[in-house]
């Protein structure tokens, strides 16, 4: 089997969008049971609240993030964490990207 004959690994379309990739990459640095507050995530990524919400909904629909709405005193706070499935998907995505990179490097 030659390198040229190997098909490029399938890239997860949910994560492949740059904005969602950044969300998942950021959340992947947290511990398994840690969750990030929505405003902190918004500031970190430099996105608007609306834009981030749209991407988070797509990630939640895919089962990659869990969104918890709670209260701190009287203020409502939303926390976002990566699910096991999301962590796995991110690992697979980075592995696929590395494989693509090796593939490109090997065939050129």
């Amino acid at each position: 089997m030659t390198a040229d004959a190997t098909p490029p690994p399938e890239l997860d379309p949910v994560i492949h969008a740059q904005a969602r990739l950044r969300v998942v990459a950021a959340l992947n640095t947290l511990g398994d049971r840690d969750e990030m507050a929505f405003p902190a995530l918004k500031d970190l990524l430099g996105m608007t609240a609306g834009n981030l919400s749209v991407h988070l909904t797509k990630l939640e629909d895919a089962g990659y993030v869990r969104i918890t709405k709670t209260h701190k005193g009287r203020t409502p706070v939303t926390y976002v964490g990566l699910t096991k499935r999301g962590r796995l998907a991110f690992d697979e995505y980075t592995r696929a990207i590395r494989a693509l990179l090796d593939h490109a490097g090997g065939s050129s």
Partner: protein
Amino acid sequence: MTDDPEAPPTPEETLRLIERQQAATVRQLKGEPLLLYLPWGVAWLIGFGAVFLHFGLDGRGLAPISQMQAVGVLQGAQVLAGAFAGFGIARRSRQVRGDASARGAMTGYSWAAGMALMIVICVRLSIALPEEEVQILWTGASLLVVGLMYMMSAAVWLEWPMFFLGAWTIAVDATGVMLGAGWQALLVAVLVGGGFIAASLWLRRRP
């Protein structure tokens, strides 16, 4: 996917994007070094500087400042530094909940317990000691708590710079205790105070 025109073009760029994002996240979650380290460095440089002026190196003071006044300057500076650091810690801990906040809380309580016991021991022993020994005891014991807490916090967060800062504090403290109150104050002001200032600036610049 047609709804995301900004999909990253090449695998290299994608990997770089991931690395950049993860580095930025780690940096933001660690908190602001200019709030967490710099105020302590400045407080100790000024406060222990004042203590040094009182004691001098050969038993004669370098400025007309009483020990109470010098300790007052040190305490005032530390209260200010604590306010800055408290603000920095509150801002940092708002960002995340979960195991990270439990670690933060346990670290915080350890600080409080260590400092409380240190104060009890020092108050009890100060009664029986001359002025210079009292100063050596308080500085030596408080920096023991500070140094150990930094080393242990570094173990919790896997933070090597914090670990070395703690070890440095303990090494300077040990040397100072052996040399006497004047030297101790001078070394702590310049090497520990200066060390925290340098560390905060270096951590800030780190990519």
